[in-house]
């Protein structure tokens, strides 16, 4: 008999030396940042900084590929920062910055890789090419690496404009669209690894490509890529947790919806032989909506607490708040529906697809068509 079977398996035993090295690097990084900038941070920001280290350590332990990704982001970002010599003008003077890893260049590379990844996934799906599918995966990972590097460097660049202007780059529509691409891609990559199936990438990356299209239009038509200082209402540590939580929700709902689309195709027999089994897709849909629902709930609560501090009430039935509630109710209904077997797979898939429309309206439509206090992204 294998003795290992009766041995306890606590978490710590499953952690390798690499995991410990990763956690140590995070702790060192956070400690360095803390010692350098503690005087400029409010108590809450210190808590966010200290909390970030164990959060990312846990994420790296939970999902192994995050570790090399974060290491890559750190190396590239620090390299870019070292090239600046504290002078923003070097953005257009240094080869690496100008063409590769200044924030704007890196984000453009992210866009490029995401489009290439989408094409690869489709080639792989239609041509039954394992190689093309694998290329899709690698391109997506590279895009995520470049995108996060872009955001990190942008964060630094904002401080080069002026210390008073500097802020985390998740404050306007341009920046959060980049964040959306990254989060959605990452959530997809997680399920791709977890379920060992790459075919769905063709569908999921379509929604990411649409976001890339928006970023490109927003950049070239509206010159929206400029870093703008924060309006007073956004100057709060709440932004650092409210916005990412929200976008994990949006990203997960998007993955669920695109899985729903895939499910509907397969259930009608279209591409069915090339796609994973229906049960697998149903399971991914459920998992993604679960993750999205938890994070969206957290994000909405954080938003309410922020509103209580900035606007004078935790709930004012502002259009953004109301639409957040509508999104929440929609997915609450979805989860209840699934539990009681009232409707079957295709109906749930349709509902998940409809959910993305509701979510998109809450994210974009409210800014475009309705007025309110939460008007931070204008088209």
């Amino acid at each position, binding site marked *: 008999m294998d003795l290992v*079977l009766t041995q306890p398996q606590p978490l710590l035993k499953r952690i390798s030396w690499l995991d410990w090295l990763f956690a140590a690097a995070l702790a060192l990084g956070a400690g360095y940042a803390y010692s350098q900038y503690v005087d400029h941070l409010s108590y809450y920001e210190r808590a966010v900084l200290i909390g970030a280290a164990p959060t990312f350590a846990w994420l790296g332990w939970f999902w192994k590929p995050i570790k090399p990704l974060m290491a890559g982001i750190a190396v590239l970002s620090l390299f870019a920062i070292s090239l600046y010599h504290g002078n923003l003008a070097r953005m257009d003077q240094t080869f690496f910055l100008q063409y590769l890893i200044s924030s704007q260049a890196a984000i453009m590379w992210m866009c490029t890789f995401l489009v290439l990844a989408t094409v690869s996934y489709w080639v792989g799906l239609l041509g039954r090419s394992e190689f093309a599918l694998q290329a899709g995966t690698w391109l997506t990972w590279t895009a995520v690496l470049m995108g996060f590097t872009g955001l990190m460097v942008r964060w630094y660049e904002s401080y080069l404009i002026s210390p008073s202007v500097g802020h985390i780059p998740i404050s306007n529509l341009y920046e959060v669209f980049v964040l959306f691409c990254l989060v959605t891609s990452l959530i997809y990559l997680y399920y791709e690894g977890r379920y060992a199936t790459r075919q769905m990438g063709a569908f999921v990356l379509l929604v990411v490509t649409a976001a890339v299209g928006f970023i490109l239009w927003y950049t070239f038509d509206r010159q929206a890529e400029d870093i703008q200082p924060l309006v007073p209402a956004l100057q709060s540590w709440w932004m650092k947790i409210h916005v990412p939580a929200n976008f994990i929700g949006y990203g997960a709902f998007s993955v669920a919806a695109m899985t729903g689309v895939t499910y509907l195709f397969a259930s009608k027999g279209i591409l069915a032989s090339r796609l994973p089994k229906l049960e697998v897709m149903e399971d991914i849909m459920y998992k993604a909506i679960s993750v999205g629902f938890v994070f969206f709930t957290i994000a909405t609560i954080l938003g309410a607490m922020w509103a*209580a501090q900035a606007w004078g009430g935790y709930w004012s039935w502002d259009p953004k708040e109301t639409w957040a509630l509508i999104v929440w109710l929609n997915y609450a209904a979805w989860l209840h529906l699934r539990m009681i077997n*009232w409707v079957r797979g295709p109906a749930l898939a349709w509902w998940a697809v409809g959910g993305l429309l509701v979510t998109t309206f809450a994210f974009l439509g409210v800014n475009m068509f309705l007025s309110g206090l939460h008007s931070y992204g204008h088209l």
Partner: protein
Amino acid sequence: MSTPTRTIQPPGKALYELLSSMRFAVSLLTVIAIASIIGTVLKQGQPYSDYVFQFGTFWFDVFRILGLYDVYHAGWFLVILAFLVVSTSLCIYRNSPAMVKEMRSFREHATDKSLAAFHHKREYASDLPVAVLAQRFEAYLRARRWRLRTRAAEDGGLLIAAKSGSLSRLGYIFAHSAIVLICLGGLIDGNIIFKAQQLLGIKKIEMRDIPENQVPAISRLSMSNPSFRGNVTIPEGSSANVVFINVGDGYLVQDLPFTLALRRFHIEHYPTGQPKAFDSDISIYSPAGKLIKNATVSVNHPLIYDGIAIYQASFGDGGSKLALKVWDLFAPKDQPGNMTGVVHGHTELNTDMGKYRVEFTTFRPFNVEAMGKGPPPLTLKNMRVLGGNPTQGGEGMQNVGPSFEYKLRDAQGQAREYSNFMLPIQIEGRWYMMSGMRTAPNQPFRYVRFPLGPNDTLASFMRLRAAFLNPQLRTEAARRFAATALGGGAANADMRSKLADSTAKMLDIFSQGGFQALGQFIQAKVPKAQQDKAAETYLKVLELASYSLLQSADEQAGVQPPPPGPAAGWFVRDSLNAYSDLFIYGAPVYLQLTHYDQVQSSGFQLTRAPGKNVVYLGSLLLVIGIALMLFVRERRMWVRLRPGSVLLAMSAAKKTIDFEREFAEHSASAEKLVKD
């Protein structure tokens, strides 16, 4: 033959079944979502007059009765929410006992028969004694943090009943109690008490625009009111001890247990000019007038005092004092009068053209504008066009200094709006005083540019303007122009007098209606083919004659006239444009700001929300509950040990792919466990 039977339930029981059912819950969630949309489509809490204008009186009344102007406080919406609370509570009441039982039970009394019916089961043969097997399986399960209970079976074997992830059930209770808590907390902070009082006729909203201290007690809420959310605007150096709560198309006055005073309001800016911070320095005084506390509130940094949170909500002008020069535009005098004004106040104005009322609306200490291009070249076509906004479509943001706005209302009650800059603005290298005018609030301002003269004041322009209105000076200037143009020789006397006459005529036309009048004159008197050429000649003559007019006026005033040259030429041209624009300007006066004493005001929102902590507690429970429900999977396992054989069976509340995987893993492990 069997007859279909239908169990008839008592109505109470049936209602209970319905309200606590999952289907009802799903329908309710959908209904609330749809109802919530209404309030985002129709802008909430606007003045009722806006709605009448938008929908017409019939639909306005229909929507008002349906409560669509304040959906989220409408009776029917609250009833739906009440249904949610009732349904969720009943659901908890109905399911919790079973859930708790499930959580505690190991189901160690499962029979062999029931185990045999399991879908996920596997049987193994084993030579090991039951006791050894039991020990191995127990160790295996405990190592994976399963909780278990072992029971001796009748046939001498054992049954190990194990479970994991029972907290998922606790998640259900947490999440659903949280919804009830959040709704109750929200209800405490809603205006439910006032609603009840209004329904009973104890309180009613005030609709009149009257001073706060004249609002009767029936429209006032006392300090004991447990929750409220109101607004008040306080000018610098003033204070308030009430806030106003908007309800429907009226308001209520909420008395405060303290006096809130605004010492100073200030705005900080980024280097780029965008606002960086809005701060109010406030003081709090006891009702007796004793200073309790000084503090600064800003956006994101409210002050909480005595359970009441004070937020920075808005800002505006609190009655800045303005000192003005009044230039009478259509009188032949070149000296201004004086006037003082207060923003939000008004001043009466008597002019030759009747009585007016100046209503001061805003004052801004600075204006950051993008400076644009200059005016288009003057031709016949655009002779009657007022200059556009100098600050549109240009680049390079810069601060162009203070400005103020006012409405000029005539005796008939008609008003135009004006926006005047205090400092001159440079456009294409020349300096102007800018005054904007518009006839409707939704229009952009169109600007008259009063040119600055050689001594950088308006005096030269105003002198020239007055001279245009002086027939004697015009005639003299026409003579002077003719003499300069044709020389002083006797031979030219006749031509000179003809030219002087026609020039005087032209100056006369221009003085009465500007370029527009001159244009009409040309169109009436000159054949169409030659109009453009004539206009060119007329303009040239007008410019030169106007320079002569300026010389005459300056000499009369004892001032050295500007020497002829490009500068004087531009000044005359700009003066003609400005003078011509006066006929469209629509005001008999130009108000020039000379001094100001800025008084700002700050808008505060004050709230008392005792339900907040209940809502936050509910939120915490909600997150924990949902996470437990969705991320913790409840599974059970039974290992039935008999001499010679082992049966492993598993069940889960939710049959996911993870569960299938886990069953495969455990059944593979069991295979190893049953061997030597």
